[in-house]
């Protein structure tokens, strides 16, 4: 019997979007509590907050989760709204452009986070 299945894609994206949302939902309140209980928010306190390796790593993961979440969200929007006959190329170009842009943002975030010493 001939069997026509789905493309077996979409589940990983959907899962990653949920996972990144959970990480952001956990990180943000914890970060806010840390920031608000660290004392007056002046340069020295803010600098001290990002001094520890754990905060650097946690912030890096937050930014990575946010960018992944945003990229998947954009992908959903492109699939929803760009479906003319010649839009496949445009969609691919947009996926690529935003992937490059967001990866650049991630590298930039690493540079900023690890410049705190």
């Amino acid at each position: 019997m001939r069997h026509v299945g789905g493309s077996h894609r979409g589940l990983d994206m959907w899962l990653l979007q949920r996972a990144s949302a959970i990480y952001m939902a956990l990180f943000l309140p914890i970060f806010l509590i840390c920031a608000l209980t660290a004392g007056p928010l002046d340069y020295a306190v803010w600098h001290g907050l990002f001094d520890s390796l754990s905060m650097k790593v946690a912030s890096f993961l937050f930014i990575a989760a946010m960018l992944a979440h945003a990229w998947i969200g954009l992908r959903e929007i492109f699939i929803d709204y760009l479906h003319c006959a010649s839009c496949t190329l445009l969609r691919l170009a947009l996926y690529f452009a935003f992937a490059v842009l967001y990866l650049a943002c991630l590298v930039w975030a690493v540079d900023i986070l690890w410049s705190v010493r």
Partner: protein
Amino acid sequence: MRFRIYRYDPESGAAPTVQEYELDFDPKGKKVLDALIAIKDTLDESLSFRRSCREGVCGSDGVNVNGTNVLACVTPLEGLKQPIEIRPLPRLGVIRDLIVDMAQFYQHYRAVKPYLINLDPEPENERLQSPEERAELDGLWECILCACCTTSCPSFWWNPDKFLGPAALLQGYRFIADTRDQSTNERLDFLEDPYRLFRCHGIMNCVEVCPKGLNPTAAIGKIKSLLVKRAL
């Protein structure tokens, strides 16, 4: 009572219009379908719409009333803002007036193979289920395929040819959840697709309009959970 009803006859070549009707009608205890029948009887016999059982079982009189998809036969006239605006279900082609072309909707329904697939030899009497297994099907089998949910879903509006829509996905899950069915894996294979299933963003328009009070979003969530379980 005042009505504004969408009129379109493709054979005439004229563009669609909205026609106003003034009907002397006591709305007490009456439904939208009663008013449509009264308009057809007394004011305009050319007005076309589908109806059959007039009690919310056959699912043939799905229309858009004041911006919401409803079954005309179970929607009370009382409490509706006048003029009552009645349009065909959104996004499906109009055959005439309030009659839409359901071909795309049925195509998606057929695609999920809405029947039991079990290759075992047929038993003497019937394939048995425990009461608990049977209870899993409640909230799934009641769908009457009126298309109110699917045509209220923006994901269906944007990708009507690829996204299966809430009604077909609910029916897909109805057979996935059936312990007598042996084709769960193939069904999940078919559904695992960015378009067929994952266009659903869970905005729950389908739940809001379902005249039978069903929850396609929950069924779609259960399909996704099964896909995750299978993948891990």
